[in-house]
């Protein structure tokens, strides 16, 4: 495997680009790489992906090897880190941020025998899969709980950026809150950040002060939980990770990004040689989205109905976007019994009927 002389001869990079794998470091083990946009200690998005990495290690033990790089900015830095990972012998690489899309595609094109898995993206090639979670399924359960639990009928929602992922979540939560509580009203604030504890705390406080007694968040820190706890009778949900340290109050449940099963499955596929490029969008059913334990602060019958909703979604009996549903402007979207197709959901950029306010654009 020592090919130093060849590689050192200047033209090496060009050769590596043309020849791909033969020049890479190789060992018998399957090597799985992870590239993270945040620190593994962020307690949210990156933390959960790293939990997935650890799940692989636990599953396969010495048969595999994992490597990761944290805090890698999107753009040229990511492309370089990915290339270094490939050169270092990685066979399978998970790129865990939407912004890594181009870097992933570029590096994948140069190394056709290395498999790539790009989280939350939409571009696939022969050796690039995409995967994401149907978090909106979890939002449906949250909305159901929120609509039942609110006394003020005002539910606060902390959005990060106005992108389809977040808008889907808002719509799904609203639809299911409205189902159980026709008087419910959503107050939505956009923090324009994924992670800024101070700002998230401010956002939560503002919503509480304006009368909201349930707060949903699509940002990653626990600051809103703390703000709700300080305020007293306010309910929240864990985001990305379980945030169980805030249970049973204010955190009454959570959406957990559970990447472990998927990562294990894909790693196994590479080891078997059965890996093929796929576009995966899994939800509660496959376990990619987990609903955290519904705490005792929720009355038993509400807990039971929420769990029933969860189980119906998991079993595929119910789709959270099932008609009749109208768009915010009153125009028809889904007819009675019709369910939204994935293409529409992937690019969702408007609210459903009943939500007030405009999406910043």
């Amino acid at each position, binding site marked *: 495997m020592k090919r130093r002389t060849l590689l050192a001869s200047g033209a090496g990079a060009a050769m590596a680009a043309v020849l791909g794998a033969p020049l890479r470091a190789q060992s018998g083990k399957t090597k799985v790489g992870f590239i993270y946009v945040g620190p593994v200690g962020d*307690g949210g998005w990156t933390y959960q992906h790293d939990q997935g990495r650890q799940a692989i290690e636990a599953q396969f033990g010495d048969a595999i090897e994992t490597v990761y790089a944290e805090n890698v900015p999107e753009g040229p830095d990511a492309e370089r880190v990915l290339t270094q990972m490939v050169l270092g012998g990685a066979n399978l690489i998970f790129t865990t941020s939407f912004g890594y899309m181009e870097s992933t595609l570029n590096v994948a094109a140069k190394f056709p025998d290395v498999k790539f898995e790009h989280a939350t993206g939409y571009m696939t090639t022969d050796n690039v899969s995409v995967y994401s979670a149907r978090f909106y399924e979890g939002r449906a359960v949250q909305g159901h709980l929120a609509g039942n639990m609110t006394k003020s009928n005002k539910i606060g929602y902390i959005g990060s950026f106005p992108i389809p992922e977040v808008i889907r979540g808002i719509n799904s939560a609203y639809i299911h809150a409205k189902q159980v509580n026709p008087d419910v009203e959503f107050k939505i604030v956009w923090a*324009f950040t994924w992670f800024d*504890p*101070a700002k998230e705390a*401010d956002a939560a*406080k503002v919503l509480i002060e*304006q009368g909201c007694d349930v707060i949903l968040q699509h940002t990653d820190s626990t600051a809103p939980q*703390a703000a709700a706890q300080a305020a007293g009778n306010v309910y929240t949900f864990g985001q990305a990770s379980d945030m169980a340290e805030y249970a049973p109050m204010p955190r009454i449940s959570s959406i957990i990004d559970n990447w472990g099963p998927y990562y294990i499955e894909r790693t196994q596929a590479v080891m078997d040689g059965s890996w093929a490029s796929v576009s995966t969008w899994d939800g509660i059913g496959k376990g990619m989205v987990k609903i955290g334990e519904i705490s005792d602060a929720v009355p038993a019958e509400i807990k039971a109905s929420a769990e029933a909703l969860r189980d119906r979604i998991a079993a595929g009996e119910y789709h959270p976007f099932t008609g009749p549903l109208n768009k915010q402007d009153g125009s028809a979207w889904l007819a009675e019994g019709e369910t939204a197709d994935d293409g529409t959901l992937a690019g969702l950029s408007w609210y459903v009927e009943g939500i007030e306010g405009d999406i910043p654009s």
Partner: protein
Amino acid sequence: MDFGSINPVLLVASLMVAATPIILAAAGELIVERAGVLNLGVEGMMITGAIVGFIVTAHTGSSWAGFGAAALGGALLSLLFALLTQFLLSNQVATGLALTLFGLGLSALLGQGYNGIKAPEFAKIDIPVLTDLPVVGPILFGHDPMVYIGIALIAAIWAFLKYSRAGLVLRAVGENHDAAHALGYHVMRIRTLAIMFGGACAGLGGAYISLVRVPQWTDGMTAGAGWIALAIVVFASWQPWRLLIGAYLFGGVTVLQLNLQAAGFAIPVEYLSMSPYIATILVLVLMNAGRAPGSLGRVFHASR
């Protein structure tokens, strides 16, 4: 759209809390800059204070011990800055930036294993009757002790600079270090003490975030608060009471825009979020900026 849902009393009360970490850090930096030193490492010292305070609190269970340790940690880190800029005469801008880089790395290393732990609650002051008063109750009497300490710190700095001899010396050193040296003052010693005070305050500010505002440890959790503190010192044109106004204004813009959003107003968030910085530049212009300490950022070497 509904202005009525915005409660001005709660708005003021919550921006006081939002402004506290920045007030603490900015108060320290104000003293540093009045002594003629520009330490751009506030963010690094804050985040170090945040983790040191969190670790100590997690082990002792006492928030006060945590705040004490955070102040000490911030001061120790700033001592590094003092050593470099005062004794080895390195450039303050570059050293400050290096300090931020160093602090972010150090805090993340120290914080391994402390993710996901919740800090014990830091009790609010609750004075029967007073706290329950309408309007003034929530604004004046309903906060945790650090909010009052922050304000008291501003008052103390104001009095120190205005009335004490030591404050006079500090200002003299900041205005013209050569003249101060000629008068027999120990420029390096005074500046080192000022830098350490600044580090301690930044540490307290950071710990307020990790122990009260969030309260949990996550990497990079100060998320730029140190840079805002630097901006506010300028906004305040180095006057302690204006610093308070500046911090409330900065915090206020954030809280207000969130309030407007929640009340259903479509507002251009980006433009509002840049407004405090533009206001700071305007203040600089209007103040005619002759008010910046004369020796700010300049290297002092005694043997000339």
